[in-house]
């Protein structure tokens, strides 16, 4: 394989990884809560700012800062559940509107606390893997490894543990889940913690690569919506596959044409999938 092709594959793998983390979290929240979380991009942003605070300002080791970011953003998710989604449980549209409000609050807090300008996060490592003329920096490799690790852990949690079954049961039929003794509130807390924490980790791990800004969530949420629509809303495996598909298409088009064309192609991809398979690649049916 020519070097520039391999290089683009590396770049696409990195993009696919963090987008998969974000999209899977979004799907998990939608599945269990029935709410489209518009603030999901800002949870990603909060994860990046956790790195600014814990790693850059406080001088903690990077991976400790990532772990703290995971917990911090996960707790933000629980806060959203307790204050916004629970009172609006019977009103998914209300949840969506409330999440837009929460998005604005998070952005404003980031501006107040850190200022408007982009944050400079010093590199975590200068190392890189070189294959021929192509290279993959350790920083990007860490993102790929973290994604594979977290998504594998999530898979086993959902398939092998009682609480994982409860989460899936709630996503499929909330009322029938209650009849099994599953508490909706408890399950919603789990889902919000996990979903938010995944976005937070994506933000934290990519912080050294993107120069965090208060508005970095915007472009990410649009991409995440495209991905979950292509994958089939409500399907976790669909979100992963679609993240890989989208990232590869987008990265290749960006490399060989330009970024604007890549965005257009990304939307066309969504359009094409919706025309051929309106429920998305892995969507089987509508879920409440």
């Amino acid at each position, binding site marked *: 394989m020519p070097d520039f092709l391999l290089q683009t594959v590396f770049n696409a793998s990195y993009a696919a990884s963090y987008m998969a983390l974000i999209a899977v979290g979004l799907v998990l929240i939608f599945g269990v809560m029935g709410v489209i979380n518009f603030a999901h991009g800002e949870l990603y942003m909060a994860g990046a700012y956790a790195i600014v605070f814990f790693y850059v300002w406080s001088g903690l080791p990077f991976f400790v800062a990532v772990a703290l970011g995971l917990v911090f953003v996960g707790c933000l998710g629980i806060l959203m559940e307790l204050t916004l989604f629970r009172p609006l449980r019977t009103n998914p549209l209300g949840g969506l509107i409330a999440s837009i409000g929460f998005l604005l609050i998070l952005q404003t807090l980031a501006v107040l606390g850190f200022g408007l300008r982009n944050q400079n996060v010093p590199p975590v490592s200068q190392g890189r893997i070189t294959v021929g003329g192509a290279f993959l920096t350790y920083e990007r490799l860490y993102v790929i490894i973290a994604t594979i690790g977290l998504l594998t852990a999530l898979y086993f949690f959902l398939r092998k543990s*009682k609480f994982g*079954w*409860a989460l*899936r*049961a709630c996503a*499929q*039929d909330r*009322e*029938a*889940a*209650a*009849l*099994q*003794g*599953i*508490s*909706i509130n408890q399950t919603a807390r789990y889902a919000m913690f996990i979903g938010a924490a995944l976005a937070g980790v994506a933000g934290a791990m990519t912080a050294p690569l993107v120069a965090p800004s208060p508005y970095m969530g915007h472009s990410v949420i649009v991409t995440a919506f495209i991905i979950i629509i292509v994958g089939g809303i409500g399907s976790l495996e669909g979100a992963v596959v679609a993240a890989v598909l989208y990232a590869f298409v987008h990265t290749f088009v960006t490399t060989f044409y330009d970024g604007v064309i890549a965005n257009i192609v990304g939307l066309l991809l969504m359009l094409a999938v919706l025309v051929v398979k309106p429920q998305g690649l892995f969507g*089987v049916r509508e879920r409440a």
Partner: protein
Amino acid sequence: MLLEVRNLHVHYNKVAALKGVSLQVPSGGIVTIIGANGAGKSTTLRSISGLTKPSKGEIHFDGQRIDNLPAEKIVARGIAHVPEGRRIFPDLTVEENLRIGAFLRTDKAKIESDIEDIFQRFPRLKERRTQWARTLSGGEQQMVAIGRALMSGPKLLLLDEPSMGLSPVMVQEMARIVSDIAERGVPVVLVEQNAGLALKLASYAYVLEIGTVAVEGKASDLQTNDHVRRAYLGA
């Protein structure tokens, strides 16, 4: 009495679905609730299991009032509800569906032996234990729903139209399963549109008509009751 429902009223928005239903379930055997579509049979079961909140009236189970508890707390007291339309989890495997019925239980060894017991009662489910529940036939899905309910180790089983949408052969199979559950010591409240079948299985019956109990009595007496015969048994 194991279960006592007293003067139950339920409103959906402003429409009254139940207008003062009272019924009693002893701690053994099958009690049936029959009636036409919209008479309030399902609403009665949903109120007992906590899915629908009554606007008036009381429900007592095992000596304690339960009508103010959420559904997940009522399961913990020992009431398992197989809802109308089965409501199995389509994207869980057969075995996951059964195991989630034991969600609140912590007695691991007993859960394993209960799973084996369910598989003995329903050998078809054992063959299909790793399949997605959505791929099962209607009768098999009904078995999963009943098995899932039994996995909670209930003191009382509420069954909402287990024969709905099943083939005649499968309906007979269901009848055998329901009798068997009661014989093994779990009392059953059976809601059915198939009144003839229900009256054969049950020892006591309530006939619901537009939200009230129109007739009640021994199932054998109701089989010969003129009103019941004309309205529900097609005689």
